[in-house]
């Protein structure tokens, strides 16, 4: 059916090609937006349970429509511009925050061949795109002409840049292991016959842990949510934003969170590969993805990782700013530098098997 749609669109020449690409983008972007809405509901529910509360339970069955009610509330609210704000940049900032976080989704492989942009330098492009998101934060803080927003933006930007370095090193170790920057090849390099022991989390265990913690810090989430420390700088960089402009920041942040969960899956936990790979070899219709691997595994693993975000938020108290900086610069960066060398040695002396 997919091929039929493709053929019928390509028959229109260049216009059809553009329509086909837009269709592919929508197939990824719309589920991401809906996933963000449902993830907000899930977050409130999970944190509620951890606090021995009920969480949202009034709107729709089990409160399932709560997120949509919130979205419509935000969309219908007035967007207030501070009188001395820089008008152009104030409007531009949320968009700059949103675009890179959605663009990065085009690189995520969900299954073998199920990826929008199969880029050769995928990993590098991913790092570049995630580092662009910080402009939205800085511009939002600067253009709203408010001290709280400015301080929040400064903190957020410094934190994001600092944690990009250990994150980059973690990606470098994955690259050394695979010998490629293509995300599909990275997943295929984790295939093998030893089940979940074949994935990169085992030889790169410190990198895996650091990658995920850096991801939490990079998205400015608890316990690293210095950018919006309510008790210190009211709400950080988006304190002057309301209505749909605020909703866009919210969307970008959550899209980034889910993206990090997917990337941790793809880079260290074998993507769509099954944790039972190589142990069972039977052909049973409908359920053989459980041991043969399939897109279902990508989503199951990503769901678990995104659950960790909520778990962290409900568990840990917020770090202090200088403690965050110490953790990034004095703990993570030395460990990652050492482990890059270890990874190179593992690969050079053939201590890990790459690929099936």
């Amino acid at each position: 059916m997919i091929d039929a749609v493709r053929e019928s669109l390509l028959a229109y020449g260049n216009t059809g090609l553009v329509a086909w690409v837009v269709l592919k983008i929508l197939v990824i972007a719309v589920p991401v937006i809906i996933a963000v809405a449902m993830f907000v509901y899930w977050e409130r529910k999970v944190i509620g349970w951890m606090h021995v509360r009920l969480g949202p339970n009034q709107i729709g069955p089990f409160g399932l429509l709560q997120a949509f009610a919130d979205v419509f509330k935000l969309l219908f609210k007035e967007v207030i511009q501070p009188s001395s704000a820089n008008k152009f940049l104030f409007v531009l900032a949320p968009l700059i925050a949103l675009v890179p976080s959605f663009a990065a989704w085009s690189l995520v492989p969900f299954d073998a061949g199920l990826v929008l942009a199969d880029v050769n330098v995928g990993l590098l492009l991913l790092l570049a795109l995630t580092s662009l998101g910080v402009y939205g934060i800085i511009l939002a803080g600067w253009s709203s002409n408010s001290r709280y927003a400015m301080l929040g933006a400064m903190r957020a930007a410094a934190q994001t840049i600092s944690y990009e370095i250990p994150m980059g090193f973690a990606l470098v170790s994955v690259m050394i292991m695979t010998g490629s920057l293509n995300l599909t090849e990275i997943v295929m390099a984790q295939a093998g016959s030893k089940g979940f022991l074949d994935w990169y989390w085992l030889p790169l265990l410190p990198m895996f842990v650091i990658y995920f913690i850096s991801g939490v810090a990079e998205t400015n989430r608890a316990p690293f949510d210095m950018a919006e420390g309510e008790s210190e700088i009211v709400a950080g960089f988006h304190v002057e934003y309301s209505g749909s402009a605020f909703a866009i920041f919210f969307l970008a942040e959550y899209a980034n969170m889910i993206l990090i969960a997917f990337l941790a899956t793809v880079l260290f936990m074998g993507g769509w590969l099954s944790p039972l790979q190589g142990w069972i070899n039977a052909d049973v219709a409908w359920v053989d993805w459980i041991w043969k691997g399939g897109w279902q595994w990508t989503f199951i693993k990503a769901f678990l990782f995104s659950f960790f975000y909520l778990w962290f938020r409900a568990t840990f108290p917020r770090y202090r700013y200088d403690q965050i900086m110490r953790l990034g610069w004095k703990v993570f960066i030395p460990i990652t530098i050492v482990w890059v060398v270890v990874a190179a040695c593992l690969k050079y002396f053939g201590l890990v098997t790459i690929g099936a």
Partner: protein
Amino acid sequence: MTFELLCFYFFGTVAVVAALSVISVKNSVVAALCLVLTFFSMACVWLLAQAEFLGVALALVYVGAVMVLFLFVVMMLDVDFAPLREGFVRFLPVGMLVAAVMLVEMLMMIGVRSVQAPPGEDPAVLAGMSNMEWLGHTLFREFVLPFEIAAVILTVGLIAAVTLNERKRSHTKLQNPARQVMVKREDRIRLVKMAAEKKGEVAP
């Protein structure tokens, strides 16, 4: 006109306009943002020229890290550029002259190179590798020594910058976050065992 050529003209125009506005806009933060746009358009041009590693690295290093720090500085300093711009018209002829000389030099260099050796086939394509792979092979096999020397020079620069900034400041109070994080319950409180006081007994 192919789609690629159209893209090239678009990115090129954006780059030139953004580069001009870097030196012409009043607001220094907007100027820095225009510089970001220039870098980004140039990265796009390089991607069009199939130098994918260089393009993405430009976006990653300059747009993603260097310019963010630069914006930091510009925002924090809040420099008033009006007095600095006063001599703009007066020095314009000199500036134009320098720019013209630079343009001629560049054109000569490109002209000499193109006469000497016309650019051949893309070596990455000849070797049957991706641009990135070919770059890695060349950099770490044929040019290891220059590469390492460049790394050492950068490290020296880093150390020099740190030592220049490292001076004893008086009246500063520092806290050591490492020690604060490592603190244990035993360091802070001491539980003392003492006999319970009973009612009616006279304290000694």
